[in-house]
C-alpha cells in the first residue's frame, strides 16, 4: 500500500468517470422525445463512414502502399477508401450545418462543438497526407503545389509533403490517432451532456435556472 496521506488516483479517476458517464448514459435505451428529425442521423453516419475509412485503410496497408496500383482487389479497396472519405466529409458537413442551426453548444455544450469542429479541421491534413501518399500523378502534383503554403508558414521545414516515408506514417498512424481521439472525446461529451434541448420559443426566458434534481436522473 502507498503512503497514508496520499489521495488515491485510481479511485478518484474511477469515481469521476462513472459519475460523468454512468452505464445508462454510455449505452442509453431512450432518447428525448424532441429528437424527431432526420437531421439527427448525420452524426452516426459520419461515424460509420470513419469506421469504413479506417477498415479499408487497414486492408490497404496489409500489402503495402503500392499494392493497389497492380492488383484489382487492391484497387477495389482503394476505391472503398476514397468513397468513404467523400461520404465522411459529406455527412460531417451536413451534421455541422444541422448542429449550427440548432445552436447545439447551448447548455454547457461548448466543448462538444469545439471537439467537433477541431475534428473537421484535423481531418483535412489527414486527408492531405493520404492524397500525397498515392504514389501517382495526383500525389506528385498535390505535394509540389501544397508545399508552398507549408513552406511559407515555416511548417515545411519539418513536415515535407514530398517525403513519401514521412507522409505515409503520418497518414496511417499519427493523424488517424488524432482524429479517432477527437471523435471519441466528442462522442463521450455528447453522451455526458445529452442532446441539446430545443429553443424555448416563449419570449420571456426564465428568470432563474430550472432546478436540477438532487440526484441527476434525467432518464425514466
Amino acid at each position, binding site marked *: 500500500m502507498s503512503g497514508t496521506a496520499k489521495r488515491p488516483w485510481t479511485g478518484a479517476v474511477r469515481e469521476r468517470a462513472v459519475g460523468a458517464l454512468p452505464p445508462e448514459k454510455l449505452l442509453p435505451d*431512450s432518447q428525448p*422525445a424532441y429528437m*424527431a*428529425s*432526420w*437531421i439527427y*442521423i*448525420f452524426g452516426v453516419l459520419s461515424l460509420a463512414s470513419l469506421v469504413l475509412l479506417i477498415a479499408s485503410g487497414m486492408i490497404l496497408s496489409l500489402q503495402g502502399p503500392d499494392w493497389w496500383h497492380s492488383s*484489382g482487389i487492391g*484497387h*477495389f479497396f482503394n*476505391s472503398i477508401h476514397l468513397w468513404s472519405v*467523400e461520404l465522411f466529409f*459529406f455527412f460531417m*458537413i*451536413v451534421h455541422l*450545418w*444541422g448542429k449550427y*442551426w440548432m445552436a447545439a453548444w447551448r447548455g454547457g455544450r461548448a466543448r462538444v462543438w469545439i471537439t467537433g469542429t477541431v475534428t473537421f479541421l484535423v481531418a483535412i491534413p489527414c486527408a492531405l497526407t493520404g492524397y500525397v501518399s498515392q504514389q501517382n500523378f495526383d500525389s506528385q502534383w498535390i505535394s509540389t503545389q501544397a508545399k508552398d503554403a507549408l513552406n511559407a508558414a515555416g511548417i515545411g521545414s519539418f513536415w515535407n509533403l514530398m517525403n513519401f516515408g514521412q507522409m505515409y506514417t503520418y497518414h496511417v498512424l499519427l493523424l488517424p490517432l488524432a482524429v479517432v481521439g477527437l471523435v471519441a472525446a466528442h462522442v463521450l461529451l455528447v453522451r455526458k451532456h445529452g442532446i441539446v434541448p430545443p429553443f424555448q420559443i416563449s419570449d420571456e426566458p426564465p428568470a432563474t435556472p430550472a432546478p436540477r434534481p438532487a440526484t441527476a436522473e434525467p432518464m*425514466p
Partner: protein
Amino acid sequence: MSAAIFNLNHPSNTVHWHFFSMSVSNVIVIVLMVIVFAFAILAPFPGRSRKEPTE
C-alpha cells in the same frame, strides 16, 4: 485498373459562374449536400408515439 460501370477517367466538364469555376462532379456533390440537408429537416420522421414523462 479495376473496371467501373461509369468511366470517370476523362477531363471534367466545368461550370463557370462569374469567377467561380467548379467541376461538374463537385457541383453535383454540393447540390446533393444542400438537398440532403433540406430533406433532413423537412421530411417527416416516423414514430410519433412517445412515453409521457414519469414526473
